[in-house]
């Protein structure tokens, strides 16, 4: 999936930067250090803005092009901050044959935020994810890691209302 660069302003704190530097130090001797550093950095900031990649580039000596190449390659790395209400609809096969595509369409229709995007006010983000493993409950979605299962498109308005 082509990744969109964020339009949200970077608001990193000095504490976050200190944590990032500690992480880089911890992994300095790890073979193949970029992946673990990026994973921890995303844990700290919630996403991977260019500003964070610049710090990693400066500290590790890896060119920023290479770091961006890795960050943009893997779908787990997010270049966009997640919304306060982070919605992820499972589009694994088991959910898809049970209609999760329609559920995603419905959410996009209700919120006006397309899949992979965050609303301009930072309130909602909508993601289409791969299998999250709750195939017995298909079709499922998660909102801020809370799992909703056995859904129909008609349930969406009611569920989203709880998060208004």
């Amino acid at each position: 999936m082509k990744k969109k660069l964020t339009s949200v302003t970077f608001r990193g704190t000095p504490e976050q930067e200190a944590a990032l530097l500690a992480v880089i130090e911890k992994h300095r001797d790890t073979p193949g250090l970029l992946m673990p550093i990026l994973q921890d950095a995303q844990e700290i900031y919630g996403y991977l803005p260019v500003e964070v990649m610049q710090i990693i580039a400066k500290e590790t000596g890896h060119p920023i092009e290479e770091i961006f190449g890795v960050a943009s390659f893997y779908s787990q790395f997010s270049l966009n901050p997640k919304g306060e209400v982070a919605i992820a609809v499972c589009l694994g096969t088991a959910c898809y044959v049970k209609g999760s595509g329609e559920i995603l369409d419905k959410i996009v229709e209700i919120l006006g935020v397309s899949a992979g995007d965050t609303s301009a006010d930072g309130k909602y983000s909508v993601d289409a994810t791969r299998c999250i493993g709750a195939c017995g409950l298909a079709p499922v979605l998660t909102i801020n890691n809370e799992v909703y299962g056995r859904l129909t498109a008609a349930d969406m308005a009611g569920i989203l209302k709880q998060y208004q």
Partner: protein
Amino acid sequence: MVRTHVLICGGTGCTSSKSEEIMKVMEAEIDAKGLSEEVKVVKTGCFGLCALGPIMIVYPEGTFYHSVKVEDVAEIVEEHFLKGRPVERIVYHDKGDDDVHHATSLSETAFYKKQKRVALRNCGVINPENIDEYIANDGYQALGKVLTEMTPEQVIDTVLASGLRGRGGAGFPTGRKWSLARTLVPDADQKYVCCNADEGDPGAFMDRSILEGDPHAVIEAMAIAGYAIGATQGYIYVRAEYPIAIKRLEIAIAQAKEYGLLGDNIFGTGFKFDLKLRFGAGAFVCGEETALMTSIEGNRGEPRPRPPFPAVKGLFGKPTILNNVETYANIPQIILKGVDWFTSMGTETSKGTKVFALGGKIQNTGLVEVPMGTTLREVIYDIGGGIPNGKKFKAAQTGGPSGGCITPENLDVPIDFENLMAIGSMMGSGGLIVMDEDSCMVDIARFFLEFTVDESCGKCTPCRVGTKRMLEILDKIIAGNGTLEDIDKLEELANYIKSASLCGLGQTAPNPVLSTLRYLRDEYIAQVVDKKCPAGVCKNLLQYKIIEDKCKGCTLCSRKCPVGAISGTVKNPHVIDPAKCVKCGVCMSTCKFGAIIKE
């Protein structure tokens, strides 16, 4: 003294329906009733019957509770544990031979009877976060036997003789892989043992369940592999999307180190083996062996051309073996129970069992393990309980985005590597998605192709550009603009991509299209010639219609229609103007009389 053990599933499926909370509430409730000395709650791995989760089993009697809710807990503790009366309302009932439903223990259910649990033997049986339970169930005995009684060559010969083949999909003989890694570069200063736990097939969760339910089996097997090929370091590459599996692996590795079962001097034999975890970051291509190694090295997970094969030049340029989680889970059993036991299961060319993740339009969604050679009919109907709502079986998809569909005429083919290949599908890692008459196969083929387009790493042109072009042709067909020539072009392009792509992802990406074209070509023809979607899925090919007799003329639909495509007067049948209709479906969902249909 503990008189009752309560096993609660702590797999991802049941956790999603609040099994953690149930466990906490139950422990508090047991405490409050003063039963904490007598009743012990154990968190286990996946029982397999995810459709009925959360699952809870009470031993010694084996009472099988299903679909348990937090609200049920107090009643279970009060009635069952205190007064000895199982809460019948949520006890599982199976239809017996006399056609009457009886309370049934898990092992007696139709779901379990035809299964043979080897890789899953500890899932739902032991607490995966407690190494002592694994050891009590013969854990680490195989490693002990290998280190004290066998030479590395004997270990490899045993694995070779067992006929074990890679469970990740391709079915390469595991013993041969090990033997190559041992012998090809005799003077290597370092070798690696890797475990592929980057289960990328959407809708497959075999490996996750094994890691969640029996992580030590994989750790033990990797140490055995390390001894066999002469490696001292292992890596488990696991999907970051599997937080429970990661947590249990971390606990298991720490416990094994504490017990001296990983580390410098294992079993006092001087054998050294250590394990590290690496997290995938959501790239399907990283399931391919060279791409996985590139990713562990910290790069974009792009595959490398082979040769050199990983047995010569793998991770960090050193000889490396990579096996899948389920493959490893078989190893300790083969060492302990022997080659004859293992080869007694399965077919001529495929020995042992295979785990499948049953999903889609099937009654018993969940995890099943059957001997190779079982037919798909047995898996879907006897174990899986058939298709819900009386619908007709159309096809089952195996092998995910790399596999193909199996149609009704092939339901009785015994499942093994060669047979599935012959009918245009593949074993794959074990995802088995069932589709009924309401699934459109063109839409499903498009779904998988969109997945591979998305996941193509972009390194080689046939896969990067070719799959994209295929997707465009499918989109054209689904939009109602396809021609018969498009179908031919699709087939031609598919065959080019298969033969010219660099890695397994590209070489198998066209399979879902090719196999649906082979068995369900009618559906493609219906879309390009008749401009219809027989399953009623593809929006652009549908027309909404009002059935005159059923329409009461309530005007609700015409008021709800966002584009004013519905006309009619009060108490008279309404009509939809197909030229204005945007096929949003609002009318159909608002009609109270079922008068609106799509066809």
